[in-house]
């Protein structure tokens, strides 16, 4: 087991480095002089010279990458062109707001999606299965930001029971969960975000459960005289590694995929920060938030793989 953990962690390091290379090269994908993209347009000649030297823009690209990586490892992502604040501060502030959304949305969607999928997988071909499958297809085909707009139309425009956007009067700093005046701002974004992975989770769970159910050992359990409830418990337990894999993946997607939902609700999270960075062509912020979000994704995958190995001894040996 320990060997597997070490191998899996060692495997994640080159991936993380590769991710950083992609993020680094974003500066070069942007049209125009890379130096211009990381500096505000009104930067003085002196600032330009300082940045040029500090980030090695006059050096070969591999050296530039090394310098950039060195800065990043020390928590320095540069300065935002738009706000002039350190990118690190902006990204971490935004990440905590995104995390708040995800921490509410993830359990909801996991429970609903898993429940639907398990139900459908236990009764394949029955009406329950048909309904769940239908709902799941609708779920994966819906543009979630549009769903957000529809919810806004219904609950904010027509019924006027929930706020349409933002985080409320107190803003990010003084947001208090246990005051309805603040918490009500969470309802619509969380609901919209939770809808994204339900379809995929339900589909995967259904497929995993149905597959396990068709295996011989299930017949053996029944032959041994086990009740249907106990059989289902065995089936669900055996399907859990696959389900766990998709849950982990979806958790990562929720963090990364929140960009559209946060934009719809102008929720000041990392996705909205990304959106603002795109509008302002604020490449340092773009780089920083993408790197942070994808590293979270890599870390989630790592944790899920390790959890899977705990649950399924076959994986450890592979």
């Amino acid at each position, binding site marked *: 087991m320990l060997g597997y953990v070490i191998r899996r962690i060692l495997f994640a390091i080159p991936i993380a480095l*590769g991710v950083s290379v992609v993020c680094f090269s974003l500066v070069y994908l942007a049209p125009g002089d890379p130096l211009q993209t990381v500096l505000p347009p009104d930067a003085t000649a002196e600032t330009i010279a300082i940045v040029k030297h500090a980030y090695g823009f006059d050096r070969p690209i591999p050296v530039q990458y090394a310098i950039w990586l060195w800065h990043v490892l020390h928590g320095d992502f540069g300065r935002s062109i738009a706000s002039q604040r350190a990118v690190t501060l902006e990204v971490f502030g935004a990440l905590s707001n995104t995390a708040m959304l995800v921490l509410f949305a993830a359990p909801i969607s996991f429970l609903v999606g898993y429940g639907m999928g398990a139900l459908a997988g236990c009764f394949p071909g029955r009406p329950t299965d048909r309904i769940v499958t239908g709902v799941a297809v609708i779920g994966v*085909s819906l*543009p979630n*930001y*549009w769903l957000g707009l529809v919810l806004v139309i219904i609950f904010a425009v*027509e019924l006027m029971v929930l706020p349409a956007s933002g985080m409320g009067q107190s803003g990010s700093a003084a947001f208090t969960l246990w005051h309805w005046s603040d918490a009500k701002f969470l309802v619509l974004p969380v609901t919209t975000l939770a809808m994204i992975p339900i379809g995929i989770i339900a589909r995967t769970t259904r497929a995993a459960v149905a597959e396990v159910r068709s295996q011989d050992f299930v017949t053996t359990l029944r032959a041994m005289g086990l009740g249907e409830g106990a059989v289902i418990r065995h089936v669900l337990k055996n399907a859990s590694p696959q389900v766990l894999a998709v849950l982990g993946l979806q958790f*990562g997607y929720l963090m990364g995929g929140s960009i*559209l939902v946060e934009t719809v609700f102008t929720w000041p999270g990392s996705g909205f920060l*990304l959106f603002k960075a795109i509008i302002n062509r604020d490449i340092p912020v773009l780089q920083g938030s993408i790197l942070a979000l*994808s590293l979270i994704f890599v870390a989630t995958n790592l944790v899920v793989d390790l959890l899977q190995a705990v649950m399924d001894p076959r994986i450890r040996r592979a």
Partner: protein
Amino acid sequence: MNERAVVAQGAIPADSEIDGAPAIAVRGYWQSVLRRLRYDWVTIIFGLVVLAIVLAAIAAPLIAPFDPYQQSIVGRLKPFGWRGHPWGTDELGRDMMSRLIYGGRISLVMGLAPVLIATLVGGMLGVIGGFAGRVANTAIMRTMDVFYAFPSILLAVAISGAMGGGMINGIISLSLVFTPAMCRVAETATAQVKNLDYIEAARASGAGTLTIIRHHVLGNVLGPVFIYASSLVSVSILLASGLSFLGLGVQPPEPDWGLMLSTLRQSLYVNPLGCALPGIAIFITSICFNLVSDGVRGAMDVRG
């Protein structure tokens, strides 16, 4: 076993299998897939809807009631049926129905082009990676792993965000998003086929690697790749409209569904129903492609 009887019959040995051979119609693989699809009415109906959307997009100039770019200062955000505009007008007084019909063109291109590019590039890399030795395989697959480490929407936003908006940049970034997954599918299929005896038999007949890939590998990789590609079309449409919604895809004044959603959002309180229309268009197109893809997958998975 009477050996003398065998020899006496000359070139054709006695074989009950010849006489007992049922006179079944011989079908190719794709023929049998089509035959199975014929009885799948869900897939057929949604396939027809897809066909209708495609035809409407192609024939947009013929069926659109108005010029999709024609603005009107007096006719802004008008309701359904206003002065012959069946679905009303948008925030610049342009005809909604015409813009939605023309929008299908862009959405279909954005849905199909990246998938096509990713299928070609990723499929090729995957076949090479699956068939080549360990070094080439590691180089290709580990590079793909890096791109796999991004959530898809994030990678698309990152690349489009850095390169700037526009349709071409959108297609490039979405192609990059889909290529690694496509490559994995092709690599897995190739690796499975690679060790089968008939590949070895082909090598024993003196065939070179390229000949073997062309005759024996591609045909077997095509199935899984096609299934996967068909499931990506709806994802691609959704992602592309998402990019447009963020201002990273198609630029104004082009009539793109995602972009329309983004601009109509400002007038949410004035004309909520009109604001919902482009979303419905995206949803219908995406769900139809999804269901057709599911049907095709079901028809292809069965081994006859």
